[in-house]
């Protein structure tokens, strides 16, 4: 009897509870996105917690809420990621695999603020005045990340900082979450490619200075350890034109090299060239990975360094890229402006081919404003445009006699000569005088004189308003020109060109100058000396006093004419030099077209920054620069006054062809260093990070 009432009671209570709950589930029904269930179905349903969420359903909620990437499930693999991305209608580009990597290379060599034995977790150490290393952002080395990794993909390496095993890493992010110093980062390849230097990065002064932001200490370390392919990949993460840059870059990085404070700077650029030449000479192109296709189309106008770099990065981010170029072959100013003896066209072609091999389309002989315009690009279905038209229009002296026969302008002369040399060598060679004068002190002027010498001009000289010290050309180039017998006339301001009765140029009149007070830019500006007019006998005159973008295409289209803002130097106006978005939102710019004539490496950096902005634009994000972008600035704590603990080691000299040999031909004048020299030079590198570096180099 008792048991019956008990059973009845339990049944009744059960029915009551069940009924109440089912009624409650109707009454308190909350709409839930049906995608949550579908997404959850694609996860491993193991409730392992490896993703950092409380079970698979919580992870699915986070995915649907947009808080977690489709790759959230670390167990289910890439197919599940693709499925989840499909459910969410997400850009499959974001379905790239995440990978952990360590950003601190200080480790044991970093100095300590204090010694505190007894703590064995980074978290704990960080809570004591930020941890023991002097470096504010350095690794504490107690291995919280190693313990957090359930996949055994991390270990504290021989130098006292964590090393990631890329094969075992699944990108779960456990190490990133646990690191109190934010040293471990979980990023996709795209995120890595688009990262711009920031104030809180752990980067050496050279990398801060490099306009392309190449991880210089890393690739030098790779050269040092014989991993030449790794070095090539490291450079290529930031600079797709490593062969060209290895030859023509004036290496601003070297002027901030810490070794340069006590000794001679490391010959960074020669090491870059060594690695780049290694790849080319090996004959095997290293594979370059691209993110999955996004289906977005970008038109890159101008196939110079900025356009090529932009196309390279956009393609690697998974966008479809077409380069429209005005010339028959790609390369822009580095093909038609830089002479053969500095950058052999064979080398350039090899390099450009690796960009085209990624699936970039090239449309040659297409001039913006003549053969197509922005409107026709939009009609053809392009989603964004990169305007990298360079600076091809020479400034003129605005002096009398400039239009005489035998008078040329710098870029015009170089590109015409290059075109003849590359495209139609069987035709008549462009005119070269016997006594030639080039006006200007920049690299264009030097390229002109060195080209003229090789073409057999008897006497070639440079006329420059200021002194050698103020010449904007690379010092290496100036020295090479001097060795090749170029005459320099400094402190001379040309006033007019004199012609004979046939209209041919026969003389150049100039005023002698003296240096006056320093002006705003710190340069002492030259002041003419009254009545010092002098005449030089010449039969060819080239003015190479600077150049700006040729923006004639603006007049061809009403829309562009009204909406595309340009500066007073005819450069394309972008409100922000980091975002590089023009006044028309889908048009981006970079390189010489945005800044006026500048370095190749700056154009490459700008191409990448513009690629970042275009990627943000195409994926529907606001096009803004990152908050803490370093851009051309330096992190103050990383700039030293002196570098104690060095042994002086002579810098490797650049091998070059003997003068009498090189001035007879256009064969490359500068040579690559040998493997032994590269090893020696890479050992000179201090492997600097933000504030620490290797002392006592042998």
């Amino acid at each position, binding site marked *: 009897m008792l048991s019956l*009432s*008990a059973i009845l*009671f*339990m049944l009744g209570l059960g029915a009551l*509870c069940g009924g*109440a*709950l089912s009624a409650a589930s109707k009454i308190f029904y*909350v709409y839930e996105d049906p995608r949550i269930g579908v997404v959850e179905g694609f996860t491993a349903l193991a409730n392992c917690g490896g993703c950092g969420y409380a079970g698979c359903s*919580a992870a699915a909620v986070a995915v649907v809420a947009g808080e977690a990437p489709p790759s959230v499930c670390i167990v289910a693999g890439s197919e599940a990621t693709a499925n989840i991305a499909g459910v969410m209608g997400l850009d499959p580009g974001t379905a790239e695999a995440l990978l952990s990597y360590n950003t601190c290379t200080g480790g044991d060599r970093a100095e300590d603020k204090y010694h505190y034995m007894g*703590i064995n977790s980074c978290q704990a150490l960080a809570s004591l005045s930020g941890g023991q290393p002097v470096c504010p952002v350095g690794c504490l080395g107690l291995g919280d990340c190693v313990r957090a990794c359930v996949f055994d993909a991390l270990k504290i390496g021989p130098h006292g900082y964590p090393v990631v095993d890329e094969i075992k890493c699944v990108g779960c992010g456990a190490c990133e979450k646990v690191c109190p110093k934010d040293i471990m980062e979980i990023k996709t390849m795209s995120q890595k490619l688009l990262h711009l230097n920031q104030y809180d990065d752990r980067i050496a002064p050279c990398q801060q200075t490099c306009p392309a932001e190449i991880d210089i200490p890393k690739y030098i370390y790779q050269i040092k350890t014989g991993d030449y392919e790794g070095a090539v990949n490291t450079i290529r993460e930031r600079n797709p034109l490593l062969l060209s840059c290895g030859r023509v870059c004036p290496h601003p990085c070297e002027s901030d090299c810490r070794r340069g404070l006590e000794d001679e700077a490391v010959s960074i650029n020669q090491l870059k060239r060594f690695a780049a030449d290694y790849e080319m000479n090996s004959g095997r192109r290293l594979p370059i990975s691209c993110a999955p296709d996004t289906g977005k189309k970008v038109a890159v106008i101008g196939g110079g360094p900025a356009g090529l770099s932009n196309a390279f990065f956009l393609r690697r981010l998974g966008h479809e890229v077409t380069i429209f170029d005005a010339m028959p072959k790609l390369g822009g100013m580095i093909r038609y402006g830089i002479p053969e003896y500095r950058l052999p066209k064979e080398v350039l072609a090899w390099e450009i081919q690796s960009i085209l091999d990624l699936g970039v389309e090239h449309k040659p002989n297409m001039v913006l404003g003549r053969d197509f315009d922005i409107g026709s690009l939009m009609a053809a279905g392009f989603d964004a445009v990169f305007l990298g038209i360079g600076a091809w229009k020479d400034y003129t002296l605005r002096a009398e006699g400039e239009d005489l026969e035998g008078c040329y302008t710098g870029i015009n002369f170089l590109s015409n000569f290059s075109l003849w040399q590359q495209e139609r060598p069987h035709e008549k060679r462009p005119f070269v005088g016997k006594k030639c004068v080039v006006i200007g002190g920049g690299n264009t002027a030097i390229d002109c004189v060195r080209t003229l010498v090789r073409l057999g001009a008897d006497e070639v000289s440079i006329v420059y308003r200021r002194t050698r010290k103020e010449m904007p050309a690379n010092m290496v180039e100036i020295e090479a020109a001097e060795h090749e017998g170029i005459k320099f006339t400094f402190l001379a301001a040309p006033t007019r060109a004199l012609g004979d009765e046939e209209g041919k140029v026969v003389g150049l009149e100039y005023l002698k100058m003296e240096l006056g007070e320093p002006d705003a830019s710190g340069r002492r500006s030259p002041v003419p000396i009254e009545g010092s007019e002098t005449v030089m006998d010449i039969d060819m005159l080239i003015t190479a006093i600077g150049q700006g973008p040729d923006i004639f295409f603006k007049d061809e289209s009403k829309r562009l004419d009204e909406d595309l803002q340009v500066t007073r130097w005819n450069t394309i106006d972008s409100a922000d030099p980091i975002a590089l978005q023009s006044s028309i939102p889908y048009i981006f710019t970079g390189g010489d077209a945005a800044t006026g004539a500048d370095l190749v490496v700056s154009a490459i950096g700008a191409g990448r920054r513009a690629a970042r902005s275009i990627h943000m634009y195409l994926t529907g994000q606001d096009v803004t620069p990152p908050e803490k972008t370093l851009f051309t600035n330096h992190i103050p704590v990383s700039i030293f006054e002196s570098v104690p603990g060095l042994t002086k080691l002579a810098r490797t000299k650049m091998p070059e062809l003997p003068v009498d040999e090189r001035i007879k031909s256009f064969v490359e004048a500068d040579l690559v260093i040998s493997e032994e020299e590269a090893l020696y030079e890479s050992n000179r590198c201090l492997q600097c990070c933000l504030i620490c570096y290797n002392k006592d180099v042998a």
Partner: protein
Amino acid sequence: MGYMEIIIGGIFVNNILLAQFLGNCPFLGTSKKMETAVGMAMAVVFVLVLAGVITWLIYAFFLVPYKLVYMRTIAFILVIASLVQFVEMFLKKSIPALYAGLGIFLPLITTNCAVFGACILNVDKELNFMKTLVQSTAYAVGFGLALILFAGVRERIILARVPKPLQDTSIGLVVAGILSLTFYAFKGMI
């Protein structure tokens, strides 16, 4: 037994965690971080008070009149489990902010023996309705206090040099024992 006595007794003297040793799993499991400890404490206050009241009603109006007191264990378990589910649904619909705040801790309490233990203690002492309410609240506050104190201690422990065999849960249990001893000092109060 006055209300003051019940409150002091529930929070300090007969602290459900440190004097009666109930609910040790969440005590060790959610005390590594202060943030989670606070979340858990809030969820326990919420559920324990509700469960105490409901189980008292069931006990007084069903089990006693029908002479089914011996069924209380299974009845309470069923009721508490359903209650937690119900509360979760109710909060999700009506007070989403509180639901989000309690988060994962709410369903976890289904398996919390402190809740069940407090309900049994209430009916064992034959308290009236108001006293049950006060007693449940006091137990829940006591649970929260102990958990938050313990989390504070455990957050400091990572700064200490703990021998390897004693790390993590082991040292946690040692600390829990010491905390428990200190709570024994309240014994003479009532």
